[in-house]
């Protein structure tokens, strides 16, 4: 394994080849971000997680082996028209796109990410797993506040060329780029979050949901989490978005 050292201001852009490495995330407890009377902390047993997001090169192997997931063949129910739009063709990322071979694959739907995970005999992480894994503090990285770092990333537009995996920070579990590169699909991204739109709270809206609205959150200062949960809540399974990819887990 090639280890990349970096600092916050000056992330090195070494080409690193992902080798399907997984790291162990120790058992923990996940406090659901939106607190309702019923959601007590959920125990999260230890699991293995891909150390990086799935790359374009890795996803190409999957597409080669599964013709129904080629751009020209994919069903619209399972992936919208943006599916792999940044690739040159069905089975080619493109010579001109060489820089992104080892960058996270984006423009992939939840269904595509699910299918890839199954093909690899893995799974998509649950929200509880993803949030537990992302909570670990950065290693080799000087920061004052992880929240500030994440928010700073959120405010930046998508880069023209998405950097390679391992180009941001590695956290204490050994996971790379949990923030700072892309957003990631979770298995249960469509979890009930109390309300899709917190601006309204009239009776009609309450009637749309079982168990009422979410009244409180576990950490009000965690703006970054607000955004992550809003983002997930705005997704549908066939959406393919230019800054949304995934990584897998094994239980």
């Amino acid at each position, binding site marked *: 394994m090639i280890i990349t050292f970096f600092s916050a201001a000056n992330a090195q852009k070494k080409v690193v080849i992902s080798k399907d490495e997984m790291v162990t995330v120790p058992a923990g407890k996940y406090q*659901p971000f939106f607190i*309702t009377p*019923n*959601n*007590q*902390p*959920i125990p999260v047993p230890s699991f293995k997680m891909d150390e990086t997001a799935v790359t374009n090169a890795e996803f190409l192997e999957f597409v080669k082996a599964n013709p129904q997931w080629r751009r020209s063949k994919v*069903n*619209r*129910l399972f992936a*919208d*028209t*943006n599916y792999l739009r940044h690739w040159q063709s069905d089975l080619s990322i493109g010579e001109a796109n060489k820089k992104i071979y080892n960058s996270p694959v984006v423009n992939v739907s*939840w*269904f595509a990410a*699910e299918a890839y995970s199954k093909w690899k005999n893995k799974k998509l992480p649950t929200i509880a797993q993803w949030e537990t894994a992302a909570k670990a503090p950065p290693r080799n990285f000087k920061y004052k506040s992880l929240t500030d770092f994440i*928010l700073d990333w*959120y*405010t*930046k*537009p*998508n880069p023209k060329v998405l950097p390679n995996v391992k180009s941001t920070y590695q956290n204490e579990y050994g996971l790379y780029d949990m923030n700072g590169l892309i*957003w990631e699909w979770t*298995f*249960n991204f*469509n*979890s*009930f*979050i*109390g309300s*899709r*739109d917190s601006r309204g709270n009239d009776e*009609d809206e309450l*009637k*749309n*949901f*079982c*168990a009422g609205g979410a009244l409180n959150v576990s950490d*009000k200062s965690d*703006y970054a989490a*607000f*955004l992550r949960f*809003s*983002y997930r*809540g*705005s*997704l*549908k*399974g066939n*959406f*393919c*978005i*230019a*800054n*949304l990819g995934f990584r897998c887990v094994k239980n």
Partner: protein
Amino acid sequence: MKIFIYCLFAILLFSCADVSNKSAFTGEAPKHNTAPVGTISSESIYQVTDTFQTQNDKKVALSSFEGKPTVVGMIFTHCTYACPRLTADIKSIEEKLKSENGKVNYLLVSFDSQRDLPEQLQKFANANQLDKNFTLLHGDENAVRTLSVLLNVQFEKDAEGNFSHSNIISVLDKKGVLVFQKEGLNGDQTDIISTIKQQL
């Protein structure tokens, strides 16, 4: 603080091209691109190959409901508030379509892969006096999650094994294409009834 969050979220939306113009789902199903000739049902939910178990312990794929329009609700039987009401709403749709008896499938799919095994589903069907037009389905976590994603139903299991969920009644056409959704409990059923009639 709220304004700060909204501002950030707005920036975020602008930075990711396609989220902002796809609003939360209400009413009519979104129009997809026209399917290529010869694959009329390419939007069909029945393409999903997961198997489920009915209240009679029969293994079925969703495609076994092909041929009739199908009304679908997602519930769990230990639910004390919304699910009995959602079930009652679907029963009332059946009642209003009495003249079309036997021509429509009514499907209740459980969120609760652990507890809602066929026997429990049968109990629920009896308790709610659901007739033979109703099928109740148990599926594994993957099958249920996939269906919920296809039907835009949000749900989450809590620490006690109960579920928070959105209340949506979906109508699938004879081929399993989502044609209409009604969100919320009670309310006017005129649109959903007329949609089902169009599908007969």
